[in-house]
């Protein structure tokens, strides 16, 4: 069995930012610890949801909207890393993902380096 692990931040980022420096360092160390655990293949750290772009395909037409895909019972079902020149190239690949045309969506999140 393999699992894709997706982390939802909730209020964690704000709370971590308010921690004393020593405890913040511990948070980073804990993430590092997870990344170095045997069997874990680290994904890329995800940028903020506000920088996301959501792509849907309806009747062959690509619909692009600002922000993450928000649905009541939606959960991320998978992920992959794409190296592309720009957002337009990424949108084109996203629009080819079957889920995008069967009622789901692909969220494009730029990766970001935080440290």
């Amino acid at each position: 069995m393999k699992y894709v692990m997706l982390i939802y931040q909730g209020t964690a980022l704000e709370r971590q930012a308010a921690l004393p420096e020593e405890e913040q360092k511990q948070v980073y160390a804990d993430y590092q610890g997870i990344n170095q655990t045997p069997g874990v293949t680290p994904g890329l750290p995800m940028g903020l949801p506000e920088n996301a772009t959501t792509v849907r395909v309806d009747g062959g037409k690509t619909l692009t909207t600002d922000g993450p895909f928000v649905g009541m019972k939606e959960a991320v079902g998978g992920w992959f890393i794409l190296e592309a020149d720009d957002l337009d190239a990424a949108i084109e690949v996203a629009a080819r993902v079957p889920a995008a045309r069967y009622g789901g969506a692909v969220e494009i999140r730029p990766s970001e380096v935080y440290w």
Partner: protein
Amino acid sequence: MVATLEQVFREEWGRVLATLIGFLGDFDLAEEAAQEAFAMAADRWPRVGVPSNPRAWLMRTARNKATDRIRRDRTFATKFGLLVAADRAEVPMKTTTFPDERLELIFTCCHPALAVEAQVALTLRTLGGLSTDEIARAFLVPERTMAQRLVRAKRKIKAAGIPFRVPPVHLFRERLDAVLAVVYLIFNEGYGGRDELAAEAIWLGRALAEMLPHEPEAHGLLAMMLLHDSRREARFSDGELVLLGDQDRSRWNTEQIAAGRAELDHALALRGRGPYVLQAAIASLHAEVPCDWAQIAALYGELTHLTGSPVVELNRAIAIAETEGPEAGLRIVDQLGLNDFRYLHSTRAELLRRLGRTDEARDAYRRARQLTDDGAERRFLERRLTEVEGTTFSG
């Protein structure tokens, strides 16, 4: 002198900024540098005179400002042992001719990965040269909200990798639609009386039509805006709304009607038959005396076919009512599922009133009034309602 300066600034802001963004690859840096250059010009030019090539002066000054800033940042960064990719400033930039990159800029600002209100704000800020405060006031939001909207949009362009370019052929059509929609939206915001936004939209529309001479829809949009705007003075009398049929035609701007028709002719010569061209053709017919309602109805029919919009159907019903009588119009109106649309009820009310069905007309006017915010439109409905109630009262 002051007017000349303002004109130069107005004309040059978008061009200078677009070129700087293309050169620097950074919206914020380009905007700060452009702002500094324009501020210097505002200070210097009235004293020493406008340089022979204002654009070159502004471009050179802004480029130098950006270079200074990057060097400063680099010194700062080096001091703290950080890596900064800032070599662009060292790339020589031609200082005699500059590419016009306003198209790249507007396509970037109207990228569908940005929220529509952000597209609108960015377009007005970067191409239109409006200040954040001016945009905030035009859209009735606090300046801070508008500033945040702009900052966030610029941040996303950078973070998400929205390209600074005119889209390739396979994306061009839909992206152009998005650009035209933003200009149209700005115009619509201004149609209710905020003249500066309508003027801004026309200015943007003209720039687009110039940059895209072979795109019928760009000319169609400009034509439509010019034609609608030509009746601005006549649409209101002492702040009160006046319907087309009752307008004082001497207050129509004939020069603007002629300019709109010239744009429409251009669009038609390009074999344009898209939504904006059709709407421009309809607006042109509206400006004729007498009005050819049969042709207007036919054009609305074509537009319904293109857009599938019930709002367009409602307009067709109004035209049909003019040619075939209110009953025929009403038959179309009553098939539309636009129950919360105030114009559906005001149109129904008007047609019922003409048919002498005053009780139903009164109910429809009331429903329309209920859906209309305070202002000229609401006062118009109230006047009509009083008239109808008077009719009912006297039997």
